[in-house]
């Protein structure tokens, strides 16, 4: 049911990845983080071989969610356990505040002109965009139309929930809350509604556990990003993505060079490759469905948007406002959801 990579990803996501890196500072190597699941699959099978071929750099991937990367980097205090971060907007701000990035020089990227203006700055470079919405199993439940459907039957009793540990979880609960009078900074109405249906909810799990729970039929509807849906689909799971009627959430995913790394040159070569046409074109079609940032790579017809210009039409959350509240939200989620 689970292959070795998935299990490793699970273990790493659950905190076992501390042993992974450190080996890799030999010449011609690079340790980069990646998200467990679809990102790891894609980077391991597509990007790593390309980097080896083009620059003779061995890419070691440490599968970690964004928040875990920050935790490990902070714990390592100046001796980063990896050379490149892969982050969402919220953790990116935390890392900037914590001084975890090397000052980034976009001019070192030969592909800089191929990405839209403003996609690279003094902190790092955008490598993809993510769209978050609702995933459901079309063989088990009807197609939901919006966030409020998740709280009604037949979906509520088949719903898989996660909390505020990840960007997609936080964004989704914010959107649910908005449907009930909440706002970007007020998630209480959402939690009140979720608590009402809690006794019948199918699963409340850690983010890393959700794809596995969906695959095993433990839950048939959940909030997640488009890549997770593509990956599960690629594995033969009955899953479809729905853009909620109130709008799907979109955000950019960025990469950053870790402060204190000895592999700065390799890191730039890696980032240059990642935003380059070859990698972007390889990751855009099925089964990866990554939204490309390279202007030479067109979006595919089944993607949630036709071009990156549409990002503005999607819901964007201001993470500078969310971050200070998140610790209290996590605490609240624990208490409201605890049995």
């Amino acid at each position, binding site marked *: *049911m*689970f292959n070795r990579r998935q*299990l490793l990803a*699970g*273990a790493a996501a*659950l*905190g*076992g990845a501390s042993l992974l890196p450190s080996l890799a500072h030999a010449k011609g190597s690079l340790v980069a983080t990646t998200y467990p699941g679809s990102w790891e699959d894609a980077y391991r099978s597509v990007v790593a071989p390309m980097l080896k071929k083009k620059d003779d750099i061995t890419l070691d991937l440490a599968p970690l969610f964004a*928040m*875990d990367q*920050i*935790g*490990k980097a*902070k714990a390592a205090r100046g001796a980063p356990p990896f050379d490149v971060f892969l982050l969402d907007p919220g953790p990116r701000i*935390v890392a900037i505040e914590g001084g975890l990035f090397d000052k980034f020089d976009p001019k070192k990227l030969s592909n800089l002109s191929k990405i839209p203006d403003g996609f690279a700055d003094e902190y790092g470079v955008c490598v993809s965009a993510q769209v978050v919405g609702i995933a459901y199993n079309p063989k088990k439940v009807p197609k939901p139309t919006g966030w409020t459907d998740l709280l009604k039957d037949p979906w509520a009793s088949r719903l898989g929930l*996660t*909390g*505020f*540990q990840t960007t997609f979880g936080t964004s989704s609960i914010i959107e649910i809350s908005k449907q009930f009078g909440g706002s970007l900074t007020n998630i209480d109405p959402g939690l009140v509604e979720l608590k009402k249906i*809690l006794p019948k909810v*199918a*699963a*409340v*799990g*850690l983010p890393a*556990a959700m794809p*596995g*729970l969906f695959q*095993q*039929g*433990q839950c048939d509807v959940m909030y997640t990003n488009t890549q997770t849906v593509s990956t599960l689909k690629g594995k033969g799971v009955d899953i479809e993505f729905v853009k909620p009627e109130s709008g799907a959430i979109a955000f950019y995913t960025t990469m950053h060079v870790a402060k204190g790394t000895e592999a700065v040159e390799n890191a730039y070569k890696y980032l240059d490759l990642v935003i380059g046409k070859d990698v972007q074109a390889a990751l855009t079609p099925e089964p990866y469905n990554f939204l490309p940032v390279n202007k030479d790579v067109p979006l595919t017809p089944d993607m949630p948007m036709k071009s990156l210009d549409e990002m503005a039409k999607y819901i964007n959350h201001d993470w500078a406002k969310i971050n200070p509240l*998140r*610790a209290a939200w*996590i605490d609240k989620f*624990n*208490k409201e*959801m*605890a*049995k």
Partner: protein
Amino acid sequence: MRSKLAEWQLALPLGLAFAALFLAPLLLLVGVSFYNDEKITQLGVGSWSGFFGDAFNYKVIVDTLLLGLKTICTTVVIGYPLALVYMDLSPRLQKVLIFVIVMPLLLSVVVRTFAWIVVLGREGVVNSVLLGLGIISEPLKLLQTELGLVISLTQIEMPLMLLPLISVMSRVDPNLRDASAALGASRWRTLFTVILPLSMPGLVAGCLLVFASSTTAFISQTVIGGVRLIYLPLVIWQQALVVYHWPLAAVASLSLMISVMTVIAALSWIGRRSGGYVNG
């Protein structure tokens, strides 16, 4: 005197390693817990008072300890009879049984935990069989319940119970059982007055290991139990790696350590006491 000094010196490498790798980080942990803020700049007892000023955390501590005790109960109930069976087996079958017992230890706990998702899930083995036999009409909810978690922890922790138990029980002189029977004791009386007291050190050692391991089994607790069942390891992980409030994470870690060690001390005390009873 000279030999004593030599013995002392022999223990030095381990002692130094212990000091560097265990004691120093532990002191650091204690130190970090006495900061009020997540940036670790302001000394104080704010994290301690914050943690223990919240009634929810008491519930988490109690639930964590109860989980350990429940796992002890199930591993003893299933493991002890197995150890009794082991005593009566031929040496060859004993080797087979030992292999079967040790085998789960050769698998990563992650693999064992994910296997339990497949077994306990809504469309898992247990539900498919029960549904197929017509015993139930709706799938049972086993995953993300404490029952499911205790079932899986019982299997996951079983070697830790059985290995010390078997090692102690195999040293019990078989003649004692015959002597007890010859003196007219029933099998049950022999079990409770002869075998059980003599196996007590192994039983207590097994309980200690199972307790310490199950209360800290973060992966099993979160993957099988889900996040509605909140135990201390989840709180520590969230504070340390999601919220980055290290002082609070340190307080939670120390609370876990102290509460688990208290129960372990109580169990060892029972063990020593029963040992005295046997010898006296």
